[in-house]
């Protein structure tokens, strides 16, 4: 039976991605292990700016939690992936429609010019983890193709 629809953005939505990642160890082993503390930041949602801290370790996403705006630094992220709600929504819809991001909606493409998404952080050598482990992060976000998503 399909999982009930979950709202984007929400901790539940990211938890569903994490659950799918953690259920597919062999797939993620093929990409290589991941070690990252990441923040996904969605600006301008109907409920304001939202941020979610995720911890990746080994072949799993081991932690998902929503962060208050004041708690971003204390989460100590390696990288922050940030953009407007509209851009995120378009990406999630594109992934749903194609089963994975098409050429114009990969994380790399969307971040290339710093808009509509931007990857950044305090320390560029930690931001580079995003590029070092890009296959895994793209596969993680592509898991949303299997998640019934509603938008606020």
């Amino acid at each position: 039976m399909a999982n009930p629809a979950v709202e984007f953005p929400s901790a539940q939505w990211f938890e569903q991605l994490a659950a799918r990642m953690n259920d597919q160890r062999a797939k993620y082993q093929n990409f290589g292990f991941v070690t990252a503390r990441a923040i996904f930041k969605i600006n301008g949602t109907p409920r304001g700016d939202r941020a979610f801290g995720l911890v990746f370790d080994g072949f799993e996403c081991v932690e998902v939690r929503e962060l208050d705006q004041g708690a971003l630094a204390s989460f100590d992220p390696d990288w922050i992936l940030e953009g407007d709600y509209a851009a995120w929504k378009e990406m999630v819809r594109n992934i749903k429609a194609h089963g994975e991001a098409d050429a114009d909606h990969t994380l790399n493409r969307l971040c290339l010019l710093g808009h509509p998404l931007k990857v950044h952080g305090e320390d560029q050598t930690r931001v580079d983890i995003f590029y070092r482990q890009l296959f895994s992060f793209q596969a993680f976000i592509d898991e949303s193709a299997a998640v019934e998503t509603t938008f606020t």
Partner: protein
Amino acid sequence: MPLPPPEEVKAKLYEHSEAQRIRSGQLGEWFTTPLVGGEWTEWGKRARPDRIGMTFMAINRVSANPEPTNEPARRLMHSRYIKTHHAIDPEMEEKIAPKYGTAREMDRRDQVWIDHAAELAEEALDRQIRPARQLHWEDMTPLPDDLERAFDQFATYLIQALYLCSDASGPWNGLIHYGFAEIKSFLAYELFDYNLMCGLLRKRVMANGGGMGVQIDGLDAGLIEVCNEASRGFVGEVEREFSSVVFAIDVLFNGLLLEMARLGSAGARSRFDRHLMTQLVQDCARHVAFGCRRISFYLRNCPDREEAAVKLHLVADRLEPLQTEHHLLSPKVLEPLAILLGGSAASQGMRVLREFWPQFSDNYLARLDAIGLARRDRCLIPAEAPF
């Protein structure tokens, strides 16, 4: 001196003490020395796989020496892993393994080591691609001639750039002491990355209706000269500047290649080509990570930080303008990228490149800030596109 006759050599070997011992059926000292307190190094180790598998981190967890020390390495195999034989005196050790021309040349932590070396070496191995098996070559998508030509030229440039890195870095691994096993492994994997990707790109170019493109003269843009000066041609009993090579190849050149790979991935017109370019993004980013950790460790631990920083700045002063002129501004690099990014419309792609350009220096300078080699006031890569 004339060689002795073969019969004399054979007779001498027959009477050799080791030959006599083997004939007697006795096992050697390696088997008879006590497991504890003798020549044997250590016993009873039971490393267990960690969350990733049986990694360097897992064996270091049970090792008596999880990190190499700064004790001078007296023999090649004397490392944090293996004991020296008590009966071999320093004079004999020097004869067995002379300092220069061997893996004893670089035996100090400040010359070689990085933070979290084990993790980065494992990541390098874990994220390597197996082109013949892992890629779905049957899924390659035919491209219009102009896009295929652009991709092939971009791939030809990358092959040239990656071979350059491989050739410049390769000889150094033999000078690094075995005590730094993780570093030796990482550098070997880095060479493997370059050569795997060169082979992969060439296969791709030869398999989709196109062919190899045009060579770029002078692409090294000062790199070979810097590397030759740093190695002193690998001749003589002299100190060599591994850090200059790491800075040039891993921090600067791979940093630029990383940005090129990101652009290539964004411009890839097929899923297959995007996969190749994403692999290159990961590879280059990992090499940059090694370079940054190496330079950071070096600056924090070398005998004279100020002098070390001056030398590295001078390398950057030389390379930045040359790399901009002969690499970043090469029409054989930019134009195929522009065609790929613009979907055949080069002018549109050029606008993307113009907007992207500041990241060449921004990301490079941000890395240098992070590793303690700030040069925002003297960087010679233009902050804005000069076109």
